[in-house]
């Protein structure tokens, strides 16, 4: 019994250490976002609050990289993607699950096969193709890419869930004379609410945080999303640590807020999304 207790104590100590390692970067970023670059260079960690500045870095960061506008751009791109993917996804998942025609299996396989295409291999030609379509530096172009890349996982999640809806409910509605629109709108969509919440969370995280696609498509400074704006603080230029940390803090506020409110839903959603893969 005592041995067991010691074991548990050791486990708690180990887990606490791991959590401290996980929290350290957040605290470090937050504290250093209130310190001047010159102070951070001299001493990366300091709790000497007399040398802290309140908003200087935040104002500087916003001037340097237009942080607030790029947060807005990031949220906008994410919002447009969620709307389009949910609209297209639910309607087609309904058809793929409940309308039996000869080739529906083939169509489904075709639509989810894209899951195995690594997006990193598409950058050059997506850029060239969007250039031909005159969709560079436009939210339409970015949304097109985001939706297109996320179609397979959207359909995997939605059809997986719709298959659990008892077919007898659909049949009964058909007997009562309901058409597809009514069945979709009144029966299937309300029942899909849990999976839609998961899907919306996942799409938000995948698009708001994405860096590769906005970097490829939205090169014009006014169109930058937050991830790209952040990356302008590093590279070949001199680091400006205070402002960089302030920008990071602003960028993660929407995510942290969402995480605090929806943490159980996010954790179970990420696990479910990963297992479905």
């Amino acid at each position, binding site marked *: 019994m005592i041995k067991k207790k010691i*074991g*548990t104590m050791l*486990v708690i100590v180990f*887990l606490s250490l*791991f959590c401290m390692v*996980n929290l350290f*970067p957040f605290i*470090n*970023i937050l504290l250093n976002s209130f310190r001047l670059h010159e102070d*951070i*260079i001299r001493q*990366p*960690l300091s709790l000497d609050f007399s040398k802290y500045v309140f908003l200087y870095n935040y104002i500087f960061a916003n001037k340097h990289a237009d942080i607030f506008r790029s947060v807005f751009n990031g949220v906008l791109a994410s919002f447009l993607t969620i709307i389009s993917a949910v609209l*297209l996804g639910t*309607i087609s998942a309904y*058809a793929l699950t409940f*309308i*039996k*025609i000869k080739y529906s299996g083939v*169509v489904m396989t075709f*639509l989810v096969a894209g899951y195995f*295409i*690594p*997006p*990193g*291999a*598409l*950058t*050059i*030609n*997506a*850029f*060239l193709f969007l250039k031909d379509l005159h969709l560079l530096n436009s939210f339409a172009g970015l949304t097109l*890419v985001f*939706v*297109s890349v996320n*179609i397979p996982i959207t*359909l995997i999640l939605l059809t997986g869930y719709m298959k659990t809806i008892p077919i007898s409910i659909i049949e009964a509605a058909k007997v009562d004379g309901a058409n597809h629109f009514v069945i979709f709108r009144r029966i299937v969509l309300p029942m899909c609410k849990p999976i839609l919440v998961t899907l919306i969370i996942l799409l938000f995280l995948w698009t*708001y945080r994405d*860096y*590769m696609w906005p970097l*490829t498509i939205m090169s014009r400074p006014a169109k930058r999303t*937050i*991830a790209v704006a*952040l*990356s302008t603080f*590093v*590279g070949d230029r001199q*680091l400006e640590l205070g402002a*960089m*940390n302030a920008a990071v803090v602003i960028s993660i506020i929407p*995510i942290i807020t*969402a995480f605090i409110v929806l*943490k159980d839903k*996010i*954790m179970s959603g990420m*696990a479910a999304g*990963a*297992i479905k*893969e």
Partner: protein
Amino acid sequence: MKRKGISRRDNSILSFLLMVGPIIIVYMFIIIVMAKTFSLSLFEWSGFGGKVFVMFKNFIKLFNDYRFIYSIRNMFIFLVITMVFQVAVGILLAFLLTDFEFKRKGFFKTIIFLPVVISNVAVALYFIQFFDYHYGILNYFLTNIGLERVSLLGSGKDAFIFAVLPQTWQYIGLMFIIAYTSFSTVSKDYIDASKIDGFTSFQRLKYIYIPISWSSLRACFIIALVGPLKAFEHLWLLTNRGGSDQLSHIPSTLMYYLGFSNYEYGYGSAIGVFIFIVAAIFVVLFTKLTAKKNI
């Protein structure tokens, strides 16, 4: 009767097409892009002027390019580091949190998972300052305890190993949550029985938790396996576009570098084709392996 049957079938085909059609049109975007990657890989093109058809010359050039050889080496390093420091640590944490009895498990779970939701760029930015030669925290500690400064990112053969660590750390939580979710569904009866039989914790992990959760844990291995093919963001930023000597690339970052820094669109597309082929091999291998498991 017969006529009604036909008209109903026509009706469902029409409904199906109307409902699935739009998504197919949007989806065609990546299909066309993929087809264009294949065709452009046979050309030499810098974006201006005509494309020059060179057949497989790009691929021959690729396998004689030291940057590409290194990117393949790096992909394997990436895979090994992920397996050891991400999958194994994630499963271990999940096990500790499930098997031992103590309070505030929800708190630990949340903090372990927290880095997963932060954007990759933010994590990369943090570790760029963490590893920085002049003002990094790591070097600050090292000099304080009397050691030499180290330059870990940017150049050299080993720079890649350090560049891959932030990503590995960030996604431990994802592996953890997958394992934890399936471990917590393991029936309490088995655990109690094993305790009566005098199993040690490690035996429980080996003989109860892992075998029962195997189908979910497979997801961890799949994610780890495709990780090197999907990764881009951390490495692109941490190595500052592959390092000053271009030795810290993985195929996707090298492709991006060739396309957008050197305007070698055809040559870059050849790497795209290489990535598609590797991905296809993984898919085939994995479906074969899992098919065997089921029998």
